């Protein structure tokens, strides 16, 4: 039941209560304030609040009215002496008493006469009451305590004055009981009380008696089926009850900025930076003990079988060998002929210097690519020379330098005293050139001054240089610089016949006067070997000989005087040698069988493959460039023999090809013979007779013991130490060979020049009975062939002919790039040939025990006409060849042998 409580009576009561209470509060408040005011006063003023008198002012002050006369008398005129701000006026009591006496009843102070009399002190306080608080304009303070109280209360009085006036004096009172006023609320309560309006009825229900204890059957009845079985009170959404929260009080608490951080420390632990250890080893006793143990023996026997099987498997066949990959190599060697054509790269001929002359020798410059030097000689016979000797003086023999950039003008001319048949650049210093003359002299040139000019010559790159040269030369009448020779050997001590071959000794060793090779401390080429038709081989040293140096100082001075007369411009590098140069020693070549001597044409010895680029690349000293001290040959002295260490591995054997076509194998060391004199040993072997002059003897650049010898219509390859015969000899060809050389890049390729101007290329890997490729390059006889590797892609072959033209040919890729395992194949081939030689030799020796001459045997191997019964030998030979073919086929190498 909702009912609003009747507001008016209760509220009245409340208000009244509030009103009274407010009054009370007010009064208590005013009491409190005054009390507080009283407490606010200073410590001295703790007097209890004065009682309120009925008139409304405290007892100890008395409001009085002061007339204007009195005011003037006591000097307390209103607004003049006393103001509201300054209300206090102390009066003398004596004055007041006097005034009272003077005016008796008229005095204003008469009502308080008694109080004044009782006043203890001399001064009384008169306070101007501007607000008429106590009803009058002035009041007089009657007691000392009040006066003190008021006086000390000056400041707060001003402030509290407002308060004082508004608040009443309140007294603390406990609220007293007041009777309850009824405002109609008891009627409401009565309404709410539940009372019985009638007495309660009592109803008793029980079942029919007969059903007591009877069976009861319960059945189910679904509540849903019957309609009125249940009454549902569904909850429904009552809008008024759901409140929409439009306002919600939340609290927000500000906190300081937080930040999550984490760190992880690295747990370092000591790690090994490096360890040094050495392997464990058994001591000798332990090893011995192990070796003797039974365990090891059983192990060895059991394991050996397995190992042997595996090893033999490997030997039988190499299962990882890729036939397919290597097949391409085999195919490439059988290329067509066009691939093996030597392309003409350039040819050089000079109009004035090459006229009617032939080139006798070619030499490539070892360092500067594209520079080649040729020696021009007259192609006249001896009688013609004599008859035309005057004409010869006008055309001095020259060595021409050709550069690839300029095919018309030679780069440099070297003047020679006579026709040069052989010359060579010094391998350690290409500015020194030594040449052998027709008259038996050795000539030395020094072209260091022109080195810079020559350096600029490149095949094509130097074209600019050459054009500028030409510009200059136009002004200077096209002069190429001429270099005069700077030293010649002494005429009496040198060769007496034309020097046919000259070679520098390698810088790694030098020869002493005894012929013993010793180490060369200078690492410069200082010695030269020459051979001439006067049956001697001489060794020369270009340094100042030390033994006779002292005795020759006088002679030197004389020489110097003579030298000063020489024209300016000749380098004085070898002035110590000029005209006084003597050979170190001399090797004579006595014939083995008969008297007389061999006349050497060409020679070659094992450790002196000077001009090859393939093998000696690693052996060459690094300092091949210009060195400042190299020109001081005059300061090099032949060292005394004792200080130098002899080298063991240098072989002192020479192969010499002679005019009669023999290959002579000799040792150049001097030996003591019976009489104690030093003499050269006789040549140990004479290996060959070809019946025509040998024109080339050359060691192979790849194999140290394989020598090529070209003579007449055939050439042969010999192996050192194998004296039974040549390893390979070519069949006699129709054309005479006039020159030959090994290829520098392929171990099995040889180049030959013929009389007709053909170049024959032999590829021993493929065919050994025929030339691989023949090509005609000129009409006249080829006099010299020299190969050269310009750079890795360009292999050149220089061929000179008798008409004075120098041809430069480019070797095609197929001919200069070695096939796979070519060196191995060639060495195998040589070995097989050697075996064959041995075999056939022994067989023939068995056939002819009396015949001890082994040299004749292989001479005409090409046309076999044995002395012994033909059929037997032939049959044996054929058997041998058949087995050989079988073996060769099996091992996969198809060499066709000479049949």
């Amino acid at each position, binding site marked *: 039941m909702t009912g609003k409580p009747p507001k008016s009576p209760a509220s009245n009561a409340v208000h009244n209560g509030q009103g009274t209470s407010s009054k009370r509060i007010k009064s208590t408040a005013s009491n409190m304030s005054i009390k507080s005011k009283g407490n606010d006063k200073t410590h001295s003023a703790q007097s209890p609040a004065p009682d309120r008198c009925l008139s409304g002012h405290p007892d100890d002050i008395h409001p009085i009215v002061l007339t204007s006369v009195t005011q003037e008398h006591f000097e307390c005129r209103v607004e003049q002496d006393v103001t509201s701000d300054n209300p206090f006026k102390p009066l003398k009591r004596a004055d007041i008493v006097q005034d009272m006496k003077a005016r008796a009843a008229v005095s204003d102070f008469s009502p308080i006469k008694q109080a004044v009399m009782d006043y203890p002190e001399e001064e009384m306080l008169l306070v101007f009451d501007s607000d008429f608080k106590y009803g009058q304009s002035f009041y007089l303070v009657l007691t000392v305590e009040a006066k003190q109280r008021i006086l000390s209360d000056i400041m707060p009085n001003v402030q509290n004055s407002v308060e004082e006036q508004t608040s009443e004096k309140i007294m603390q009172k406990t609220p007293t009981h007041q009777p309850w006023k009824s405002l109609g609320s008891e009627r409401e309560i009565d309404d709410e009380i539940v009372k019985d309006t009638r007495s309660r009825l009592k109803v008793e229900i029980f079942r029919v008696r007969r059903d007591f204890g009877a069976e009861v059957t319960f059945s189910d009845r679904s509540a849903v089926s019957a309609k009125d079985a249940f009454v549902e009170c569904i909850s429904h959404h009552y809008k008024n009850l759901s409140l929409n929260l439009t306002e919600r009080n939340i609290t927000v608490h500000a906190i300081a900025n937080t930040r999550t951080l984490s760190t992880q420390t690295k747990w370092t632990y000591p790690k090994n930076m490096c360890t040094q250890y050495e*392997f*464990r*080893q*058994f001591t000798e006793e332990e*090893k011995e003990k*192990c*070796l003797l143990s039974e*365990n*090891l*023996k059983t*192990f*060895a*026997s*059991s*394991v*050996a079988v*397995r*190992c*042997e099987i*595996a*090893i*033999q498997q*490997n*030997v039988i066949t*190499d299962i*990882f*060998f890729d036939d397919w990959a290597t097949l391409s190599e085999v195919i490439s060697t059988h290329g067509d002929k066009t691939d093996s054509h030597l392309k003409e790269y350039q040819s050089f001929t000079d109009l004035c210097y090459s006229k009617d002359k032939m080139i006798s020798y070619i030499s490539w410059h070892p360092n500067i690519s594209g520079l080649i030097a040729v020696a021009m000689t007259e192609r006249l016979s001896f009688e013609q020379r004599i008859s035309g000797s005057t004409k010869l003086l006008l055309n001095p023999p020259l060595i021409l330098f050709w550069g690839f950039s300029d095919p018309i003008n030679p780069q440099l001319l070297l003047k020679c005293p006579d026709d040069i048949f052989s010359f060579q650049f010094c391998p350690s210093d290409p500015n020194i050139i030594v040449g052998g003359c027709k008259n038996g002299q050795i000539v030395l040139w020094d072209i260091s001054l022109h080195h810079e000019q020559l350096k600029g010559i490149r095949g094509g790159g130097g074209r600019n240089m050459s054009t500028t040269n030409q510009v200059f030369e136009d002004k200077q009448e096209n002069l190429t610089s001429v270099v005069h020779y700077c030293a010649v050997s002494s005429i009496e001590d040198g060769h007496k016949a034309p020097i046919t071959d000259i070679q520098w000794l390698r810088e790694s060793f030098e020869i002493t006067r005894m012929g013993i090779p010793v180490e060369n401390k200078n690492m410069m080429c200082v010695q030269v070997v020459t051979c001439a038709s006067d049956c001697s081989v001489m060794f020369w040293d270009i340094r100042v000989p030390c033994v006779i140096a002292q005795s020759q100082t006088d002679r030197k001075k004389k020489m110097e005087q003579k030298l000063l007369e020489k024209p300016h411009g000749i380098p004085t590098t070898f002035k110590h040698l000029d005209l006084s140069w003597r050979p170190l020693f001399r090797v004579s070549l006595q014939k083995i069988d008969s008297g007389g001597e061999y006349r050497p044409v060409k020679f070659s010895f094992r450790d002196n493959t000077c001009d090859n680029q393939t093998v000696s690349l690693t052996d060459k000293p690094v300092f091949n460039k210009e060195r400042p001290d190299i020109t001081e040959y005059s300061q090099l002295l032949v060292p005394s023999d004792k200080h130098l260490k002899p080298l063991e591995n240098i072989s002192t054997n020479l192969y010499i090809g002679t005019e009669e076509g023999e290959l002579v194998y000799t040792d150049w060391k001097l030996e003591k013979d019976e009489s104690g004199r030093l003499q050269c040993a006789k040549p140990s072997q004479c290996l060959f007779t070809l019946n025509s002059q040998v024109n080339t003897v050359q060691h192979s650049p790849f194999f140290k013991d394989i020598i090529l010898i070209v003579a007449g219509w055939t050439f042969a390859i010999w192996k050192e130490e194998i004296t039974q015969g040549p390893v390979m000899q070519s069949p006699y060809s129709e054309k005479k060979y006039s020159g030959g050389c090994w290829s520098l890049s392929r171990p099995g390729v040889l180049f030959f020049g013929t009389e007709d101007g053909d170049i024959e290329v032999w590829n021993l890997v493929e065919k050994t009975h025929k030339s691989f490729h023949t090509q005609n390059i000129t009409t006249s006889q080829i006099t010299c062939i020299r190969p050269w590797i310009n750079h890795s892609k360009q292999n050149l072959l220089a061929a000179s002919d008798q008409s004075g033209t120098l041809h430069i040919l480019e070797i095609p890729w197929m001919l200069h790039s070695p096939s796979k395992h070519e060196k191995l194949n060639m060495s195998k081939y040589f070995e097989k040939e050697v075996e064959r030689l041995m075999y056939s030799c022994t067989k023939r020796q068995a056939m002819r025990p009396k015949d001890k001459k082994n040299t004749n045997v292989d001479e005409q191997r090409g046309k076999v006409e044995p002395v012994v019964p033909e059929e037997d030998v032939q049959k044996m030979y054929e058997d041998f060849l058949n087995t050989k073919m079988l073996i060769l086929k099996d091992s996969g190498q198809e060499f066709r042998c000479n049949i």
Partner: protein
Amino acid sequence: MSVEETIKRIQSQKGVQGIIIVNAEVLICNAGIPIKTTLDNSNTVHYAGLIHQLVMKARSTVREIDPQNDLTFLRVRSKKNEIMIAPDKDYFLIVIQNPSE
């Protein structure tokens, strides 16, 4: 047949560069130490130490796949040569051969 004869026989085969007999006892922990060799000392010890580990690994591989199985022979073919290893219980034999010679 003694150990020397075995070694000589194997050495005489074509292309054989060296033979080493190595101790393989694992229990006493002095394994991988060469006993007899035809090579120089530094090479021998090198081979012995390295190949010992290889053999142990190979053997354990074989045995893990099938515990009844065991390693009988190991051939390591390289570009330059072939190393053949015959292991046994206590020792193993290393043969280095150059097959293309």
